[in-house]
């Protein structure tokens, strides 16, 4: 009996010690700001990728549904060619930036790290993620008694278990240093949400400069986990912050922006949020799914189109347009939004139940915001095209750019049954193989059928204006 008690006590003690030891992996401080190193747009080589043609992809959230749709778009781009300076160039190689959230971040990050290896039939990405029941992997981790003890620690959460799965299955020990060493575009913008202000948090060195954090020390698996950190299902992901320890100097745009609350509140609040990262008592930053602040991954592209001086000016598209570096801008939005058509409560006089109400309040604001984000992008491009025309007429000398807006989403499908089929695919990390196949296929097909894509690759005559939006 006493030996049983001793053994139980020993086990309890071991578990307590284990819980005490379990903690999220600490990211390393940055000793000094050095803009010539780290994962920054300006530090990537552009030898094979002309900026004259600037291509931005955005991959939305939506679990495996989003990852597979984005994958299909990448496959189509790999097989497409564009004429540039009399030379035929591969369109995928011309992609400059991929901005992603949640499910879309798996495809973006794996492609950014492994390039064409992502396309291997039966290769690691397909086998270990796209066609895999990742949810079961996550559940198995959660049900292990060893992990229960670790989860008892206040600094180790379910998101750390998820990160371990992504690391094991897809990314190994790769960090942002590997992306920086790779030195090639596309520049990845893996987006999550800063819980503090609900603002977008992007895993690029310039975002981490005011926190004095070395992005090179952060595993890609951790960024992807943060980006797909669905609230409640996972715990918020924590980063260490070391403000004031690396000689960070606030960029001049911040002081100017802070004087424009009434003129330009968006710029003002961007500056305010920026300053929060420098506050000395802010030792940690807690991150949620990128979809909470922008489920379509398009906000960074929108900012880059509207602001000539961002936190990282090198990838501001507007800056490049103003400096007459870009002649042709292509924005491809890959939106895997679903539509829950099961909401049939209006057929009954009964009040909808709590489940339906929770579903509505948790999904509708995000969907509306995503819709508005897409519309804002279209407006920004339309405004630019109008401005170019007005300037041309007035002879004020604005650089004339060809603008392409290409939207890949299920609502583009003409056939009602087909559209509903895709819109009903749930947001899961586990889909039947035939659905993954269909999503890959439809991603490529929707891109191919876009009139603006056809115009871009020379399969269709150019329209009269500078903007092609379809």
């Amino acid at each position: 009996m006493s030996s049983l008690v001793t053994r139980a006590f020993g086990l309890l003690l071991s578990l307590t010690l284990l819980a005490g030891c379990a903690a999220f992996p600490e990211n390393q401080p940055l000793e000094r700001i050095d803009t010539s190193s780290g994962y920054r747009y300006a530090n990537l080589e552009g030898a094979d990728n002309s900026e004259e043609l600037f291509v931005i992809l955005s991959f939305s959230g939506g679990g495996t549904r989003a990852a597979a749709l984005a994958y299909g778009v990448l496959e189509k781009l790999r097989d497409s060619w564009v004429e540039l300076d009399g030379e035929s160039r591969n369109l995928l190689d011309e992609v400059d930036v991929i901005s992603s959230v949640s499910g879309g971040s798996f495809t973006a990050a794996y492609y950014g790290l492994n390039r064409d290896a992502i396309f291997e039939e039966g290769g690691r990405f397909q086998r270990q993620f796209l066609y895999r029941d990742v949810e079961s992997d996550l559940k198995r981790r959660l049900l292990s008694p060893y992990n229960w003890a670790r989860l008892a620690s206040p600094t180790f959460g379910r998101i750390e278990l998820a990160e371990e799965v992504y690391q094991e299955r897809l990314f190994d020990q790769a960090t942002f240093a590997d992306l920086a060493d790779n030195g090639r575009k596309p520049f990845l913008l893996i987006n999550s949400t800063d819980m503090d202000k609900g603002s977008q948090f992007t895993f690029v060195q310039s975002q981490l400069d005011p926190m004095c954090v070395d992005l090179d020390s952060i595993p890609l698996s951790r960024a992807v986990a943060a980006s797909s950190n669905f609230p409640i299902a996972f715990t918020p992901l924590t980063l260490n912050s070391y403000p004031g320890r690396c000689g960070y100097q606030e960029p001049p745009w911040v002081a100017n922006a802070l004087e424009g609350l009434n003129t330009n509140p968006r710029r003002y609040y961007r500056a305010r949020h920026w300053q929060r990262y420098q506050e000395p008592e802010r030792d940690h930053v807690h991150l949620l799914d990128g979809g909470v602040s922008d489920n379509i991954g398009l906000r960074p592209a929108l900012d880059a189109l509207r602001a000539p001086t961002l936190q990282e000016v090198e990838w501001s598209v507007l800056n490049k347009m103003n400096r007459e570096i870009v002649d042709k801008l292509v924005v491809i939005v890959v939106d895997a939004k679903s539509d829950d058509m099961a909401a049939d409560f209006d057929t009954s006089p009964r009040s909808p139940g709590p489940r339906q109400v929770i579903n509505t309040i948790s999904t509708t604001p995000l969907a509306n915001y995503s819709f508005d984000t897409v519309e804002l992008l279209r407006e920004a491009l339309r405004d630019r095209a109008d401005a170019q025309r007005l300037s041309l007429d007035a002879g004020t000398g604005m650089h004339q750019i060809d603008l392409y807006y290409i939207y890949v989403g299920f609502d583009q499908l003409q056939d009602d049954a087909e559209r509903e089929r895709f819109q009903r695919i749930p947001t899961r990390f586990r889909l039947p193989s035939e659905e993954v196949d269909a999503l890959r296929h439809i991603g490529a097909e929707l891109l191919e059928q876009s009139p603006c894509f056809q115009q871009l690759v020379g399969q269709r005559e150019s329209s009269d204006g500078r903007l092609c939006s379809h």
Partner: protein
Amino acid sequence: MAEYLKVVFPERREVWLDGEPAALTQSVCQVDAGWYTVTLAPPQDFAPECQRVEVIDTLPSAPLIVEFTLKEPGP
């Protein structure tokens, strides 16, 4: 809100906004509304050294004009 700025200088040169290369002289550039510190890329042969301007209520056909002049060479 998109606003428009044109920096005038006798030569074609890079324009710096808030300490970063951001446009070219003689061309209309598009900016976000608000305050900017405008200067030119080296050499420092222009005057004034920099100008702080608020870009607001402009049009592509009627941008805010910011002018720099070539400094007289010293004796």
